[in-house]
């Protein structure tokens, strides 16, 4: 009972602190709050998208996991030693979430340049553009 009361008190205190001081003073902090948020999110692999990437992202989400991109990919056919066994997830994973960019950025090198995969995508995902966006986020 006392523990619950303490938790509510703590929550109420911080809420009041936020509403009464942090919110009114935010304009004076010159983006420090945003920087603090981004620093915390970036450590988890989440990066803010600029307006062009935000505008394009809905098209990335159209992946239906058919795997045709992986079949058409000439790099996968030519270089089995470097191929990833679930290659189609280069598009499928990125189409749902742009986190963990560093994990896939290196493997997306051909995806950002070769047209073959993009040409066979039934839902017309701009694969090259998406791959380039992910590689940019990983830097």
């Amino acid at each position, binding site marked *: 009972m006392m523990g619950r009361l303490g938790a509510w008190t703590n929550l109420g205190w911080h809420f009041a602190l936020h509403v009464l001081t942090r919110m009114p003073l935010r304009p004076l902090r010159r983006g420090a709050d945003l920087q603090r948020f981004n620093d915390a999110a970036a450590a988890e692999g989440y990066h803010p998208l600029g307006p062009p990437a935000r505008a394009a992202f809905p098209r990335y989400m159209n992946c*239906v*996991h*058919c*795997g*045709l991109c*992986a*079949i*058409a*990919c000439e790099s*996968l*056919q*030519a*270089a*089995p*030693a*470097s*191929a*990833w*066994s*679930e*290659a*189609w997830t280069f598009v499928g994973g990125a189409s749902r979430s742009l986190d963990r960019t560093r994990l896939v950025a290196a493997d997306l090198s051909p995806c950002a340049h070769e047209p073959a995969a993009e*040409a*066979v*995508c*039934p*839902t*017309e995902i701009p694969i090259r553009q998406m791959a380039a966006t992910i590689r940019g986020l990983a830097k």
Partner: protein
Amino acid sequence: MRIEFDVAVLGAGIAGSAAALAAAHSGARVAVITGPPGATAMFSGAWRGGCPDALRAALAGTGYVLRAVDAPLPHPCGQRIHCAAAAASHAGARLAEAHVVGIAGLTGFHAGSLARQWRAHSHATVQLEQTPAAGWAPVSLAAFIERASHSVVTALAAAAADFSTIILPAVLGVRHDGALHAELQTALGCTIGEALGTPPSLPGWRLHNALRAALAAAQVQVIEARAGGCSANGRAHELELPNGDVVRARSFVLATGKYAAGGIDANGAFREPAFGCPVWVDHLGETFDVADSLMLTDPARTEDQPLLRAGVHVDARQRPVNRGGDVVYQNVFVAGSIRAGWSAATHGSGAAAQDGWNAGLEAVRA
């Protein structure tokens, strides 16, 4: 630029290709306008229903031979699939006396569990040279087998030694001509049957390429584009391409498929993007022209889904009609899964092929 044909076919899947070949065989000048591949390229390898003889012959001319099948074929989900025909590489997968052979590093094909589910004779797993540390992508493995078939023969020889039939995953090459399958059978001295495929499906990719090769052999011009149609007075006259070119034709076949490649748009109201044909689905006494996911989804996921029955309704000559039954376009003929009432559960490859063939002949007669 304006290009003229006798018949213009929208879609290069099974139905569209069959329509184009039917029209070409009847002497028409034919163009196929197609966007990216759709459901045909995700084909498992199991051909359900018949196939027009001329289409079968056209495919055989490219090296893609459809053989009759009289026993169920193994599917990597563990099921045994009944079908009428399959490509030669699958047709030999007779389960009763088969030895299932998996390939180390290839996910989705566990030989031991599949052999039990398929009730096959026995199983083994082989290790190929140059197996990547991260495992095989199906297309990487298929391309490797094409390039290094001799090393594959060496790896399989021991596993196949005491068996008349072995079943392998669907990775015997990327090419559609079956040459690699024949080569391996000769080298190993036994029957090799490929299991059916799942996405990313090499059997589907091979069928897609075989159809394209058949169209090329029939001198059908294939234009890679999504086209919009122009019409007046109940007839379609031409198709506008994104680059500004215009394709004019005396008649058209609409075979753009259902949802996979955008033949039907179901974001909100149903829409057929090429000619604007009316699309609706009748379900439980109601008519839906909006893709209501709550009403049009059966909670039993294994049941036929009402949403998949949405499509373009047609008359006896496969011309699109509105809700009053009036023909919308006198010279447009609809074929394949874009039709209302069609779904993969109710209609297979053979039905699409026959429907497309009929539409192609109607288009020539129009």
